């Protein structure tokens, strides 16, 4: 009792002294706040966060997993270093993949070009200028086989950033693995398969929400049965954040989308513990360091609560939120690009201290073009330095117990629950997306950020302050100008070589099945085996499902 009152007295004295000092030396701003608008106090003290340790934090590897999903975290094994890569042709990307594996990368992550992501073949009129630009062009099974040539698919786990046509690319991967002699039960990896955030922020949608949700639940149930080591979805906040949301919005909208997928799978008759352990998440690591760490910790606590207490999952694996992180692409500046290495380091550290399962660190030149090999290597080295040299991996959740971080974790959690309420009132995430609610919230936040930068309330080093008069132009990665022509040639040859009658029959079967309610995965796998192209498969589905044209 006495010590408490002594503390109070000393604290008040300190406050008084500080006030006097501030009359002469005011603070830099009147109000400090996080990206989510959470006010930041001058000093955090004991008692900032709720002090029920077991309930709010628990032990790592135990509910509510605030401190991490494994008891030993990085003392046992570092996170998976997974650099997103892909450009040009399958041959070129295969070379980059093998280079990255040689350099010590531990998992693959495929970037597809936009025609592939939107279900067009390379020779489609819509693909003009886009073939092989932001990722690798995949038209048919043969491209997929070249992409993973000499890469053992039973040993490497592969993440594929593919959404609307996820079932087609997964089917190609399964068949390519089988042709290597690896059965589908043994392959591991992730497909992004998160269509809701495409409508909200990323834009590579094809079909309207309802049939898209069916394709997703078809994948859930097919994989639960046949591809048990596959993560069937990576519910992504990354792009929501890139579109300009705050940290709290990123988390709230992502987890709300997560609930929508769980609801859809339950409605399709699946048992929660059959698919929930294969759900994965994907978050952004942005600049405000402590807020990011708090965001990751809050994410685990909220999800485990939802799964255990709202959805009544029994398997602890269903309660655990596992996530991949990528550093924030929109924080990179085109000006003085080497500075981006430092930004990426700080962001990556927040992901590590937030307990990520895998990590992509951006390359310094990504605001300008696709990364050069040298830039991609520095990005990977950044992770290796954090893992092997910094010592931050030697204990579990080193920021746990920080008055500030615990306080922020609670605050972010509160914000997320209040967004949940608003979204529930609209009828859930699918309805909120259809009404454009999340899109508007994000756009408002993005515009506020832009204005703050232009008024120099927010400083971006090298861009609106500390500028150089003469920016040297860095060397950029250039693509093969002939690529599109070569890819179209290859596609024509495949179509000439295949058994056209068989391909037609497979597409007709798929069309019939799409009109009914059967699981479409086996039909798509059959199409892929007989060399139907992604444009043909998605074309059939477009005919039945229609196309989405915006909220």
């Amino acid at each position, binding site marked *: 009792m006495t010590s408490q009152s002594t503390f109070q007295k000393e604290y008040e004295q300190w406050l008084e002294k500080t006030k006097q000092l501030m009359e002469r030396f005011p603070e830099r701003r009147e109000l400090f706040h996080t990206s989510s608008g959470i006010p930041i106090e001058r000093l955090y003290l004991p008692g900032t966060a709720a002090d029920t340790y077991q309930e709010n934090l628990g032990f790592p590897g135990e509910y509510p997993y605030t401190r991490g999903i494994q008891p030993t975290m990085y003392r046992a094994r570092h996170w998976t270093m997974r650099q997103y890569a892909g450009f040009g042709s399958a041959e070129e990307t295969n070379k980059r993949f093998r280079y990255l594996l040689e350099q010590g990368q531990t998992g693959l992550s495929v970037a597809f070009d936009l025609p592939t992501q939107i279900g067009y073949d390379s020779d489609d009129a819509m693909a003009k200028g886009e073939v092989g630009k*932001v990722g690798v062009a995949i038209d048919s099974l043969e491209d997929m086989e070249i992409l993973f040539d000499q890469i053992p698919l039973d040993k490497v786990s592969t993440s594929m950033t593919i959404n609307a046509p996820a079932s087609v690319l997964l089917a190609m991967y399964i068949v390519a693995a089988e042709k290597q002699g690896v059965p589908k039960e043994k392959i591991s990896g992730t497909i992004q398969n998160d269509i809701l955030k495409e409508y909200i922020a990323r834009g590579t949608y094809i079909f309207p929400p309802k049939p898209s949700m069916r394709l997703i639940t078809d994948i859930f149930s097919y994989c639960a049965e046949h591809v048990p080591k596959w993560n069937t979805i990576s519910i992504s906040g990354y792009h929501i954040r890139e579109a300009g949301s705050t940290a709290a919005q990123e988390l709230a909208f992502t987890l709300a989308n997560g609930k929508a997928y769980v609801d859809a799978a339950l409605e399709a008759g699946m048992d929660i513990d059959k698919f929930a352990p294969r759900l994965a998440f994907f978050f952004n690591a942005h600049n405000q360091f402590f807020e990011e760490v708090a965001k990751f910790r809050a994410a685990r606590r909220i999800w485990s609560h939802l799964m255990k207490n709202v959805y009544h999952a029994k398997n602890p694996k269903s309660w655990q939120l596992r996530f991949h992180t990528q550093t924030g692409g929109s924080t990179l500046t085109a000006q003085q690009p080497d500075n981006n290495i430092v930004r990426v380091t700080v962001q990556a550290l927040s992901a590590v201290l937030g307990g990520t399962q895998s990590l992509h660190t951006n390359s310094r030149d990504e605001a300008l073009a696709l990364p050069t090999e040298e830039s991609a290597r520095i990005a990977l080295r950044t992770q290796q330095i954090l893992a092997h040299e910094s010592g931050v991996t030697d204990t579990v959740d080193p920021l746990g117990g920080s008055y500030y971080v615990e306080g922020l974790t609670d605050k972010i959690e509160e914000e997320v629950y209040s967004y949940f309420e608003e979204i529930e009132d609209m009828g859930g995430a699918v309805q909120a997306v259809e009404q454009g609610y999340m899109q508007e919230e994000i756009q408002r936040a993005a515009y506020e950020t832009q204005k703050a930068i*232009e008024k120099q309330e927010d400083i971006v080093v090298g*861009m609106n302050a500390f500028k150089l008069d003469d920016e040297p132009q860095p060397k950029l990665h250039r693509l093969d100008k002939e690529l599109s022509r070569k890819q179209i040639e290859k596609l024509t040859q495949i179509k000439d070589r295949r058994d056209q009658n068989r391909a037609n029959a497979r597409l007709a079967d798929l069309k019939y099945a799409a009109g009914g309610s059967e699981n479409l995965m086996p039909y798509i796998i059959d199409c892929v085996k007989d060399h139907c192209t992604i444009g043909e498969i998605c074309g059939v589905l477009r005919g039945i499902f229609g196309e989405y044209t*915006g909220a």
Partner: protein
Amino acid sequence: MKKQIRVLVAKPGLDGHDRGALIISQALRDYGMEVIYTGLRQTPAQIVAAAVQEDVDAIGLSCLSGAHNELFPDIIQLLKEQKAEDIIVIGGGVIPAEDIPFLESEGIQKIFTPGTPTIETAKFIERAVYERDGISLDQPFAVNQIDHIGIAVKSIDEALSFYKDTLNLTFEGVEEVVSQKVKVAFFNTGNCRLELLEPMSEESAVASFIEKRGEGIHHIALGVEDINSRIKQLQEKDVRMIDTKARTGAEGADVAFLHPKAAHGVLYELCEKQTRG
């Protein structure tokens, strides 16, 4: 007198990153323009049709997929075919510097790269449209007000109490202007501010000023609009400038100094605040 400028903001190509397009749409609206946004994945033909139908003055293209070299020239070509080449076309997105000369030679008037303040884009469109329509935008040289008076001091800490407690002026805070190697403190006097300048290094211009002439009045800052045009006007009249291009000064304002020899021994600063928008 001023006409309402109509702009079509369009996203050619397949990428779904429309944060930039949405921000620029909002910023142009806030500037007073009418803006129509096409939405994602528009073909060149769709964009040109919309531009003609909506009778716009300008098209802003945003592309982050890398397809700009193929798609932007297609749009220019289609505009010509539609006899709508008087529509001003600008572009932005992830566009490497080395592609810009090609795009500009194809008829894109200007490419704005990441980090460009939206106001700059708005002013560019306004100027281009007015020039096309033969309306002169050039304002005569004008000064709004004395923005502030700069006073060189050896130490802000020592001078602070005189300004704050004796003169009882409102203290607005201290800032370091790294590029000038000075620390500055602002006081508000009502209609003009005082800026105390303390050198942070011996190489600072303020340090050599104090060494030569002691503490005292250092410069007078004149508030102007469109600072780079004002600089040009002075140069046309053979006024020698220390800064021939505006640079960033305290509080993020764009500033440029005149040479004191050209101004009867007074060091004048032109100063434009970034407040609009």
